[in-house]
Each structure stands twice: as structure tokens, then as C-alpha cells.
């Protein structure tokens, strides 16, 4: 085990955090810093990152603060699947905001994803398999090709 001579021998690394904003709480600031680092890591390594807001001990008002700070970008997606899931790209491409609702319209969880495109938006291989078979069957049934 390496021994450290004294406190001054411990290397200190500073990272640029988000500048403190009058309306941002410490928890939101910490999350923004985490997102900034995740976005940079994604650029370097391609590793995606997901923050599940429901699991964090922050207040609902702070969810809204974070969402407002990140803003809304060019893409909004609504997925009607066992209830509505709303996804939008924030004003920072690569950072997406995901809200999962159940069939009663209640919010199940809110997540922030650092990725090119959230997996849920893509068509799934299993669904494509089923669609191919279904389309072929429908065409055969009508007895004519387009």
C-alpha cells in the first residue's frame, strides 16, 4: 500500500462544474454537473448514461427546475405503449428527457438519458419480426401485390 507523505501530496483534480445560478438548488447543480461529465464521456467512449430521478432524494420541484434548465430541443416523441411515454431532446443534443406514464396517466418515473437516441424510440427486433409476418399475411389475404 503506497504511503502518502502528507495532505499536500494528495493530487487534487478540479473539474469545471456548472456555474451557480440563482434559481438552481445544490442538488440540481450536482445533477447538471453529472450530465456534463456523462455527455463528455459519451463523446469519448460511446458509453450511455441514465439518471432515474425517482430514485433520488430530491423534491418534485427540483425535477421541474432541472427540466426547465435543460430546455427543449428539436425533437419531441410521444409513445403510446401501456400508457403515454413522452420523450424530448433537451436544448443539449445527446441529453434526452423521458417521462413514463401508466394507463391512468400517472407518472411512473422520469429519467434523463445521455445517448444518441433513447432505445424505446427504435423499433424493436421482435416487433419487426412480428410485423414482417403480419404484413406478409395481410398481403396474401388481399390476394394482390401493391
Amino acid at each position, binding site marked *: 500500500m503506497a504511503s502518502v507523505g502528507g495532505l499536500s501530496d494528495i493530487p487534487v483534480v478540479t473539474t469545471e462544474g456548472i456555474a451557480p445560478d440563482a434559481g438552481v438548488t445544490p442538488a440540481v447543480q450536482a445533477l447538471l454537473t453529472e450530465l456534463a461529465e456523462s455527455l463528455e464521456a459519451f463523446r469519448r467512449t460511446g458509453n450511455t448514461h441514465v439518471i432515474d430521478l425517482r430514485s433520488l432524494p430530491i423534491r418534485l420541484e427540483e425535477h421541474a427546475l432541472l427540466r426547465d434548465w435543460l430546455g427543449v430541443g428539436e425533437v419531441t416523441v410521444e409513445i403510446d*405503449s401501456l400508457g403515454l411515454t413522452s420523450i424530448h431532446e433537451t436544448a443539449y443534443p445527446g441529453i434526452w428527457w423521458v417521462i413514463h406514464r*401508466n394507463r391512468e396517466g400517472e407518472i*411512473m*418515473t422520469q429519467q434523463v438519458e445521455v445517448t444518441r437516441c433513447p432505445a424505446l424510440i427504435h423499433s424493436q427486433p421482435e416487433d419487426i419480426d412480428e410485423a414482417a409476418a403480419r404484413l406478409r399475411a395481410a398481403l396474401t389475404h388481399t390476394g394482390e401485390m401493391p
Partner: protein
Amino acid sequence: MTRPTLAQQLARQGISRRAFLKFCAATASMMALPPGMAPAIAEQLGRRTRPSVIWLSFQECTGCTESLTRSHSPTVENLIFDLISLDYHHTLQAASGEAAELAREQAMEEGGYLVLVDGSIPTKDGGIHSTIAGMTNLDMLAHTVKDAAAVVAIGTCAAFGGIPKADPNPTGAKGVAALMADGSIASKPLINVSGCPPIPVVITGVLAHYLTFGSVPELDNLGRPRAYFGDSIHDRCYRRPFYDAGKFAKTFDDEGARKGWCLYELGCKGPTTHNACATAKWNMGTSFPIESGHGCIGCSEPDFWDAGSFYKPLSAPAGDVSGLVGGAVAAGAVAGAAAGLYARSQKRKAAASREKMTVDDLKD
């Protein structure tokens, strides 16, 4: 006949893979797992066959079933029940009488099923104080647990005996763990989901964990899942800054109470109670007792009903100490220590001879 996998089952019901992935994301969140695990959960869950679940209700108030049917993510009528195939449940099933008992026997034939129990089990006088279809609860539980894969005791009654066990315990009520310990029923992997009732999302989260991993989650020393019972209410309470600053409400309608100060002096049992109320909260994350202005009553702990007044602080003795420490109980470390020692012996006595709550307790 091989049972279909969950993925096959859902596909047949017209539920897309995308919907299944969304469900797994919500499940990961519910199980307090890293959200990046959702694809792995989808992979695992999709491959499993639909397990049978038998729900046995014994000496209970039906509050735990009420709590489960308020679970909202995902809704009980939807995926969880589709996934777990609830083969037997008095309140929720359509069949009754002999048809219902036959359903239970059929579900048991294949073995490897999950048994959920709510309510305590009476053991006095041969267990005759609660019977179903002429069978004592104890016999039904012993018979059903024999070939089960695992047992989940839902609610403080099933976990620790609960309110029926409160002194003088006229029916000889016991929890499932106690019956496994004394050999009355077979020993099986057991998860205690305590609470009176438990928080809905905790019930479904535990079921989701079992479905996904096929195993019991990490448990604390009382057999409760650490993911939900690892922290005390006090550790995660939003009023903790007031406790730390020494700001306490003295009555339920004083300035401190109106300002939302700590409820320690009004009897809050938060420091000695482990549950997820302060984070997961109740009624879809709306609130929990402390946030509504009433101290925690410790309902997820064993024998909470016999642990002294809900309205006297934890540091105060459960009985009259004016002769011992001269009155001013709450002030001074020495008085507090002496009171603490006295309180412990009084609590043992209170457990032996139950203290009835009086109007004076409310006046403190």
C-alpha cells in the same frame, strides 16, 4: 405441457416488445436498481415462465390487499398480475367455495410456486380461531408451503404477528417466520414485507425482483428487503434539519407544528423504524404521516402496538418517573440516560401488560 415464457405470453396478448421494455424500465426504477439495468431485466424476465402465485389471507383486515390494489406502476390489473398469474386470492378471484379451493390445489400441483401470506396465523386451541373451508389457517399454510419455492409475508401481521399478536394475544397469533422457526411449517426462503400496511410499490417491487432474478433480495436481520427497509424513517425524513437544529413541535397545533418542525416530542418513532415511507411515500408519492403532521407509529417493526404510547417521545419513559428523576425528564443527559434505562424496563413491562392509551397521552 411446457408453460410459455413471459415474452411469449405478452406477445400473444398483443403487448409489444417496446411496451415490455417500458415496463422493465419502470420495474428497475421500482426495485431501486440502476436504470441501465432495464435491458438486462427485459432479457431475464422475457425468458422466464409465468410462475404461479397463491395468496393466503389469514387473520387480517384486508388492508394489505387494499394497499396492493392501489399499486400504480404498473397497475396491478395489468402486467404484474399478467406476469405472476394470481391463481388463488379470496378477495380478488372470481371463483368461490370448492372451485376456489380446487384452483389452489391445481396451482400447487406443479410445485415451485410463490406463496404470499397476509394476516397472522392463530395457534391457540389447535388454531381453530380462524378457519377457511373447514381447514385451520395453520394447516392450510403448512400444506401450501410444503412444495413452495418461496414465501412472502405481506404486512406486519404475517411478518411479525401484528395487531392480533398484541397483548393479551387471545388467539395465540404468530407470524410466518415464527412458525418456520418452531417447525410448525416447512422452512422456505422467506421475505418479510412488513408495514401496516406495506407501501404498495414495496410489495410489487419485491415481487418484481423475485420474478426477474428468481431469488430472494438482500434482507436485513428481520428478513426485510434492504432496498426498502435499509434506512430508518429518521435517516431520510425531510424534517431532519429541524431535528438537528433542535426545533420541535410541542403540540399538534402550535407554531412549530404549523411550521412543519420535527415531531419527535409528539411521539414520532421515526428513529427506530425502518421503512420506505420518507422516500417512496404514500398515495402515489403524495405524502406520508410525518409530512401530514403526525409522527411515525413504527408500524413496520415487530410488536409496535405494544411498544408504549404513540404520543410520548422515544426518550421519555413509558410510565411515571416523577419519583426517580424528579420531573424534568427531557432535559439533561443524566436524566435522559436514567429515563432511557427506566423506559426500557417499562417497555418490557408494557409489553407484558398492555398500556391502554388515555386522553392524557393526547394532552402531552
